[in-house]
């Protein structure tokens, strides 16, 4: 890879989120939260992530992450994009980000939906780093799906 490729990968926005991550740290909530721990076995990035839903809205996403700049910055961007959104809308944003990351650099990102997340368009060209960018997003989806499942009418949420 060349110096230009490097700059495409490490957009200024990504480095800013890496140095000053938004929403970092694990936070407690009075009622039910779901917590997951995901790892990226190829490079060793790790995230512990908690989701709190209130009235069908993503009330909080808190996380503790160890890893490279790409994985840390994408957790920060995830926080900005999904907190305060309805679960369905947040899932749609998740899908948009996933499509961008899996597009091998051919997908034109929609800034209205992804905001700072468009900076990750360059990462999509580096197969080895796509997993770094998706780590916290996959963790969020996993945790959110667990919460939604336990809140459904079929379950009483008191799983032991």
């Amino acid at each position, binding site marked *: *890879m*060349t*110096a230009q490729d490097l700059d495409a990968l490490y957009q200024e926005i990504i480095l800013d989120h890496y140095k000053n991550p938004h929403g970092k740290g694990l936070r407690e909530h009075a009622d039910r939260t779901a917590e997951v721990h995901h790892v990226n076995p190829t*490079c*060793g990035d790790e995230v512990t992530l908690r989701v709190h839903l209130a009235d069908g809205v993503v009330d909080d996403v808190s996380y503790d992450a160890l*890893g490279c700049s790409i994985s840390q910055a994408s957790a920060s961007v995830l926080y900005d994009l999904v907190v305060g959104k309805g679960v369905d809308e947040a899932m749609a944003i998740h899908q948009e980000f996933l499509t961008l990351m899996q597009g091998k650099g051919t997908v034109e990102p929609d800034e209205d939906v992804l905001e700072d997340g468009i900076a990750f368009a360059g990462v999509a060209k580096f197969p080895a780093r796509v997993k770094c960018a998706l780590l916290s997003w996959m963790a969020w989806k996993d945790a959110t799906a667990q919460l939604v499942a336990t809140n459904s009418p079929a379950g009483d949420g008191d799983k032991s």
Partner: protein
Amino acid sequence: MALEGLLPELAVIRKDFPILERELAGGLPLVYLDSANTSQKPQVVIDTMVDHLERHNANIARAMHQLGAESTEAFEAARDKVAAFIGAPERDEVIFTKNASEALNLVANTLAWAGPRQVGAGDEVVITEMEHHSNIVPWQLLTQRTGATLRWFGITDDGRLDLSAIDELITERTKVVSLTWVSNMLGTINPVAAITKRAHAVGALVVVDASQAAPQLPIDLAAMPADERPDLVAFTGHKVVGPTGIGVLWGARAVLDVLPPFLGGGEMIETVRMESSTYAGIPHKFEAGTPPIVEAVGLGAAVDYLGHIGMDAIHAHEQAITGYALQGLQTVKGLTVLGPLDPAARGGAISFELDGVHPHDIAQVLDSRGVAVRAGHHCAKPAHARFGVQSSTRMSSYLYTEPSEIDALVEALEYTRSYFKLD
């Protein structure tokens, strides 16, 4: 400024490795510092393998024709070359496997089965905290399956094995001690002879993972006093300038003879009846099925090549480059080397941390300058955990590494610091 200990014909040796002349994207020269991961291949290995495929290809041992005889001869000649490379007391003690992991798994599996060396409940297996995962997981599986207990040596702050409790760790209950000769993460060279002597005193088997040692240290098993000589030694072909897909398990005949067969199949039998079979002697007893023939032939050419240059000279070269690299790395602000700082006490793999930049990002920026290193846990998660780090960056040199490549690494690390805006 000539560095003392460098191979005198370094420029000629570099010409033997065609890949070192290729250009990377953007016209950058290759600075290959990932040899502990896999080494590059000299032309003679490539040519030997091509020649075998072009002129001598046939299955071995069973083909009743000229090509079969030539192929068998080439395969068995490779065994002789490997035996000479490690100073094996007997050439038939050299078993070809797929890689070092398979060699270690062969031992750990067959020790679980009925036989005079069988490991059972109440027995103990001792490993170390600095092992590669492939010398941890097989022993975890063995002890879990048999009810034996797994114990291990810890690591001191300066990256050496903590031998202070050796007499409590290696006891009458110990059936196996398995350790790495040279750490793939810390570079530490372990006192294999002293530990083997202690283990033999209690009747334990000693297994040595020589994956990082075989490429850099002269090994002469026959010259070692019997009580200090390990019983089993594993290494892989692709780290000693040979191809992938071929590994070696050397074992003392007395041990290999009493271990039960590992994989059953063609070539490993003496005779087969529907009720039961009898087995071939070593080495064939442990080589079921068609082996990686051309890979073995390539490995033979590889160890011949190293032997021709001389393992003492290669070791001296590695020490010179390692010393130069340790000096250079420590000029980089915020850089901490993990493992011993004395080049005489270590191999050519140097793992380090750089304050403020994650290893994956370091490796990425280095790659943009043509410098190839490894980033991550290097399949040694427990050793990283011991130093409270999740991953590290590792540079590793070999006989073709020249000082200017270390300069390029140091310069690229300075560039990395500026790229991530560290002061």
